[in-house]
């Protein structure tokens, strides 16, 4: 049952709800308009990961998805090596194309390196290895390279948050070198608050390419989801009566035959300050 709450990986993710499709259109516009550092901001359950995964197959160029939630560290080395390791087929394909093109120099060495060596190089020299991949994509004319970094789990209280912020800062500083690469990051609101407090130069750049997801589903979103799951107006009315819902809560209700408790919908009115 729990897996129904987690988005599937792979091509063909269908976004439900006009608000979420509008968010994806905005994201695609940012990619087309050459934004290089894009953030998807939303609280837990707003669909950041689903939106990110829905880009696969929807954008021109190469899409690489890195799930940082399953990796221990959050520094630049961990992020880049995860992006390479999680997308080894993409790397292999680029290497094949480079070999066929008869490229010389550093890109030839990149093409001939074993996959383990490439991942190790991404770990030891993350920015240099990413720049090589960027140059390969540019040389082959198959860009842009879009790297989606899923970091919806990191909170301001996590000591690794500063490592992560430093890593994004490194992407910011190297945008000129990575001219065919676009980085899309998912962030929780509290990490955004933390960035605004400890790294103003980064915050100023992020502000230009940020997308905030709706906190709650609208009536139109609800209507579409309910129709998609084949429920009638009476069920829709019951769902509306539960109060504002996140997209995850709504999908959960669909998958659990309207079990509000399982879906974490708190109807208790008790509010205290701890």
């Amino acid at each position, binding site marked *: 049952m729990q897996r129904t709450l987690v988005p599937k990986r792979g091509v063909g993710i269908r976004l439900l709800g006009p608000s979420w499709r509008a968010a994806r259109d905005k994201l695609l516009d940012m990619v087309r308009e050459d934004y290089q550092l894009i953030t998807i*901001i939303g609280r837990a359950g707003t669909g950041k990961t689903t939106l990110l995964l829905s880009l696969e197959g929807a954008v021109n160029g190469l899409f690489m998805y890195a799930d940082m939630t399953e990796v221990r560290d959050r520094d630049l080395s961990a992020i880049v090596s995860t992006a390479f390791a999680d997308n080894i087929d993409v790397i292999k394909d680029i290497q094949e194309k480079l070999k066929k093109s008869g490229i010389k120099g550093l890109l030839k060495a990149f093409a001939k390196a074993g996959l383990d060596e490439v991942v190790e190089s991404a770990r030891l020299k993350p920015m240099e290895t990413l720049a090589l991949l960027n140059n390969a994509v540019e040389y082959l004319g198959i860009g842009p390279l879009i790297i989606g970094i899923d970091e919806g789990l990191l909170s301001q209280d996590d000591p690794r948050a500063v490592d992560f912020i430093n890593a994004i800062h490194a992407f910011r500083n190297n945008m000129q070198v990575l001219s065919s690469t676009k980085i899309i990051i998912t962030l929780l609101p*509290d990490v*955004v608050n933390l960035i605004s407090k400890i790294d103003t130069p980064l915050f100023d750049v992020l*502000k230009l390419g940020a997308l905030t997801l709706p906190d709650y589903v609208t009536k139109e979103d609800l209507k579409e989801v309910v129709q998609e799951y084949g429920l009638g107006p009476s069920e829709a009315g019951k769902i509306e009566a539960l109060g504002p819902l996140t997209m995850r809560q709504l999908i959960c209700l669909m998958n659990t035959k309207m079990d509000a408790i399982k879906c974490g919908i*708190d109807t208790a009115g008790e509010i*205290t*300050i*701890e």
Partner: protein
Amino acid sequence: MAYIIGAVLGKEDVGGVRVAYSTYTTTLGKWVRDPDSVVQYLVNIGKAEILKSGSGRSVLLTDKELMSRVNRLLTPKEDADPLTIVLDGIRKLANPLSGYADVGEVIKYIEDRLEIPTKEAEEFLIKVIKFHRARFVFAHGGSRRLKIGSTYYGLIKVVGDAEDAGS
């Protein structure tokens, strides 16, 4: 009464509010029969001191907490409804990207704006949230934790704010 008159006539000084003895007792005399004994009583219970001031004397009203309470009574209350105060605070303090404000900072904002203690500001915020539940959305983080049902939150946002950020 003695402190209200002090608050109106006196000036802030290091140890409290200071007012010329004769001015103070003359005004106080309009309300009580023997103002000098009232001053003496205040001195005896540690709420005032009599100080030499040039050739004359001053009364120093020393209970700062009582003086702030009197000042609050005398200051006209802000004519704004509670929801507006909370919405103003959140919007003023919200992160421009996410639209969320730190609950701890919102409480401080209410404290300063209404000149009330922290506890009262917390209760004020809770009442507004309870009454207008659908106007707010919460997220984890922040410097103070709000427990709503069984979940803890520290960031608060006005529904609909900041969803067009970046456009």
